[in-house]
């Protein structure tokens, strides 16, 4: 039975507690033991209440390229200034090993993760937005990151927007803007083109400029050729 491992409260000789004590990070920017000693003393003297007895973690991120340091010496400097060295972080593998032999534990808490794995996204085809009821004046429909299919009339004063293509099976009398995020390959397809405005990736055509529309009732497409919006039968 696992009972043998369990101990009751009064038998336990320790308890784990989490606390958030302030800890000073001392980031080395230059390796010079003499200067380090002097400057540390000066800094502690400026604010003894803050520094004396304070735990210090040595951060080697900046100096990780300069090889092995004399950690025993550094430890001595910190202790002689009434600081409490508790570990090192961020150095090269070589430095960390050397520090460990000198009595500096390697600390990983509070350090940015070295490998930041992006969360894996399962590739998923965006679902096309489908509208079956009439789109009235003043209404706005936006298909974000996908195509828009409208199976009803689009009234004057209504607005269709899509990051992808737009297909309209009822009369298109409002505005239709495809590729609004800049997709120049986006197209608009419709059967009755009476639109107030059509646009592909920001290039637009107003009703007044829509000439020579095919009048045989064929399905039309609106696409971008260079910087020109074209209307043609499919």
């Amino acid at each position: 039975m696992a009972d043998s491992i369990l101990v009751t409260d009064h038998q336990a000789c320790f308890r784990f507690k989490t606390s958030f004590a302030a800890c000073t990070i001392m980031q080395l920017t230059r390796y010079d033991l003499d200067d380090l000693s002097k400057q540390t003393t000066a800094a502690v003297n400026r604010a003894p209440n803050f520094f004396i007895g304070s735990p210090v973690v040595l951060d080697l991120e900046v100096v990780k390229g300069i090889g092995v340091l004399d950690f025993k010496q550094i430890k001595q400097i910190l202790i002689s200034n009434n600081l409490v060295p508790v570990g090192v972080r961020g150095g090269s593998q070589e430095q960390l090993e050397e520090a460990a032999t000198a009595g500096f534990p390697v600390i990983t808490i509070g350090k940015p993760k070295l490998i930041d794995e992006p969360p894996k996204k399962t590739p998923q085809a965006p679902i096309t937005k489908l509208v079956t009821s009439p789109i009235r004046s003043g209404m706005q429909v936006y298909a974000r990151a996908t195509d828009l299919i409208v199976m009803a009339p689009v009234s004057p004063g209504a607005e269709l927007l899509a990051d992808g293509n737009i297909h309209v099976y009822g009369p298109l009398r409002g505005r239709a803007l495809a590729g609004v995020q800049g997709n120049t390959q986006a197209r608009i397809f419709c059967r009755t083109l009476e639109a107030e405005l059509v646009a592909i990736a920001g290039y637009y055509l107003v009703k007044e400029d829509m000439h020579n529309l095919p009048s045989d009732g064929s399905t039309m497409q609106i696409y971008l050729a260079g910087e020109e919006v074209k209307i043609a039968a499919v």
Partner: protein
Amino acid sequence: MVKIIVVTSGKGGVGKTTTSASFAVGLASRGYKTAVIDFDIGLRNLDLIMGCERRVVYDFVNVIRGEATLNQALIRDKHTKELFILPASQTRDKDALTLEGVAAVLDELGKTFDYIVCDSPAGIERGAQLAMYFADSAIVVTNPEVSSVRDSDRMLGLLSSKTKRAEEGKGQISEHLLLTRYSPKRVANGDMLSLADVNEILAIPLLGVIPESQAVLRASNSGVPVIVDSESDAGQAYTDAVARYLGEEVPFRFLQEKSHWLKRLFSFKEKEAV
């Protein structure tokens, strides 16, 4: 179960109040207990059209604020039994209406009435949205001209999204098109949109076509809803529309120009010749 009808249009001056008054009279004269409410706070007109402006003591806003009971504010119509009018306040503005207040008044009316006709103000703001919010069906009043058609279209969009039924997913409210001030002669001349033109854009069931008529103005000025004038074409057209609303099949009238008897004779001859 009470049925709440909103008469709306978006655009002003198309005949909402005339329609509300005539429709309410039409429903009441068929024996349904009917209340007609003026939602146009600050620009009250319904009492004038209904000819009860001299009997207004309390109004809609008084009831909402608890300053009067509903029974004190309701005005019994003099000509039609079963018809009551709840007038708007002329001294307030539309902010005096609250959703809770309107809900309470409609609830109270719903206990005893068969139909409640809400006469919406023009525009798409608060007053109009409150008038439509609780509706079961909407009569969209439209004139045969482009700006009115566009505004009605906008209203239909709001009706499909900004009503209690739509918000609670209880299905669409029933929408009915009422085309007013229709002049077949001007349609024939190309000065006016035809019924087909309007239908193409709005595409909702047609409740009626009210011809442009002197009788409407005469009725408004005399404070008797035009439906009461059974001799007039507009009055008859409203009677037909009410019948259609109640589910009866009535052929559409007044869609063709009244032609002179000589012209009729000639067209008859032409047909013979073919």
